[in-house]
């Protein structure tokens, strides 16, 4: 089988060869535990880690001292949410988040709920964005943290971060954002956006898997309780030996993203629009999920009415796409993100997430659109729902047996 066309950039991004080159020396020649303070091996490893920290910080306009390395965004999100909640639990016990957050944010909140915290899950509008008035109304005297993701992993929409940050700062509430899908794709600025905690994932921005970062503001200071106790690394917030090659990889990935963001943003937007146009021209009854304007250029989430998503994926097996979040796609439940947008279940079942990125070419886009159009048409010919639709029968008028 020839190499599939990779259109799953929200699940993970390929490691950039330049990142790989930067990491490789640290896998061998530069070995050493960066916490060994008594010999040159340790010092060199530490220097490399600190240089990487600067690069990551610079991409989000943060103080490098406020940045800690973790094993990835999942850990960063757990640490930020549970860390703040546990540290301030004597005084405050309310957290506001949103229904379309990543599973690791929602599950951290569920755990806190079981411990007695109160959680507000803000709804989203049909475009996938939260309503700032809902946020303002949800805030109470007991609210300690607002956790709203920067960019949604399924539908790519960008939440109004600066506005959320402003509201939180005014009310003296910490603002955490899961920026795994945003960092390196759109400009992020913890100062301008008044962000207090920010989660980063390396493998979503062309870096290696197994490393991420959490920004924890120092002025005004945000305190967190660590998830893991032990050796005191990362200012006691995250013990465990740091991996110099992984940290260097994340740093390099951030440096590259920083340099190439404007041109890459524009390039991807052209590709995305070209793809969307081709699909809309080639097929009827295709619906876009999530706002088109407030969206990163590397994402489309489309419902191909009357064609089931998993069946469609099987037909386009030489395209690597996703029918929902990768973590849950082994289950047959329709995406909770699409459901939160008010997409009907039958429509949610027909959705594909298409992610474009640094290595996507125009040729691939054209080929992918062609293949999808061909397969959707073939499956629609096989679909009883499409047949009813063509005959003008409203499928809602039929009494379906639930099973």
């Amino acid at each position, binding site marked *: 089988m020839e190499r599939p066309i990779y259109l799953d950039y929200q699940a993970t991004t390929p490691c950039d060869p330049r990142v790989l080159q930067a990491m490789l020396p640290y896998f061998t020649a530069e070995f050493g535990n960066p916490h060994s303070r008594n010999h040159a091996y340790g010092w060199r490893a530490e220097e490399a880690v600190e240089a990487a920290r600067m690069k990551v910080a610079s991409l989000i306009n943060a103080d490098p001292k406020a940045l800690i390395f973790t094993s990835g965004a999942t850990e960063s999100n757990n640490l930020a949410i549970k860390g703040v909640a546990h540290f301030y639990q004597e005084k405050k016990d309310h957290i506001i988040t949103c229904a379309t957050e990543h599973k690791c944010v929602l599950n951290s909140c569920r755990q806190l709920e079981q411990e007695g915290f109160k959680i507000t899950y803000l709804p989203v509008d049909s475009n996938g964005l939260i309503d700032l008035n809902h946020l303002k109304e949800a805030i109470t005297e007991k609210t300690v943290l607002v956790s709203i993701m920067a960019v949604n992993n399924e539908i790519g929409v960008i939440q109004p971060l600066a506005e959320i940050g402003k509201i939180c700062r005014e009310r003296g509430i910490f603002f955490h954002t899961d920026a795994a899908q945003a960092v390196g794709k759109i400009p992020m600025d913890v100062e301008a956006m008044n962000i207090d905690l920010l989660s980063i994932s390396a493998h979503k921005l062309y870096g290696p898997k197994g490393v991420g970062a959490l920004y924890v503001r120092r002025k005004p200071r945000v305190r967190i309780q660590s998830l893991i106790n032990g050796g005191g690394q990362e200012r006691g917030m995250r013990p465990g030996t740091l991996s110099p090659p992984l940290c260097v990889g994340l740093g390099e990935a951030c440096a590259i993203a920083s340099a190439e963001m404007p041109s890459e943003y524009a390039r991807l937007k052209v590709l995305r629009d070209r793809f969307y146009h081709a699909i809309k021209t080639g097929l009827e009854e295709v619906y876009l999920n999530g706002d088109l304007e407030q969206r990163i250029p590397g994402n489309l989430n489309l419902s191909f009415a009357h064609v089931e998503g998993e069946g469609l994926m099987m037909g386009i097996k030489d395209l690597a796409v996703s029918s929902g979040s990768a973590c849950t796609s082994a289950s047959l439940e*329709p995406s909770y993100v699409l459901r939160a947008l008010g997409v009907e279940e039958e429509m949610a079942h027909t959705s594909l997430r298409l992610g474009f990125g640094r290595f996507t070419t125009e040729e691939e886009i054209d080929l992918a659109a062609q293949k999808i159009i061909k397969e959707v048409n073939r499956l629609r010919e096989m679909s009883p729902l499409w*047949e009813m639709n063509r005959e003008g029968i409203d499928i809602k008028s039929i009494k379906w047996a639930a*099973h």
Partner: protein
Amino acid sequence: MAYSTEVIDHYENPRNVGTLDSKDDFVGTGLVGAPACGDVMKLQIKVNAQGVIEDAKFKTFGCGSAIASSSLVTEWIKGKTVEEASTIKNTTIAHHLALPPVKIHCSMLAEDAIRAAIQDFKGKQKAA
């Protein structure tokens, strides 16, 4: 979740896709599943005077296993009597297609579709 070669074969080359005239008294139509659950099967049989299924057609909205299950049973029931067809069990379908546990419901849906089509046919015969 790798699909078996049987599933892939039926998915890529589905047998007996199509529609029979549902108004015909000798045609039974079964429509099972629900769009909100992610799969819908329409199975139609045309039965001759001897009670033998001489044609079968299907249309399915669903995953590869659902399409393969319905395609497979149209092949199996053709040439069988209505009574013989009604004895087809979902376990036989699942076994033949080597369906993983999460896909067993596809074979159950196919069994339901056969029964629904036969019931519809018998209902029409009684009324006639």
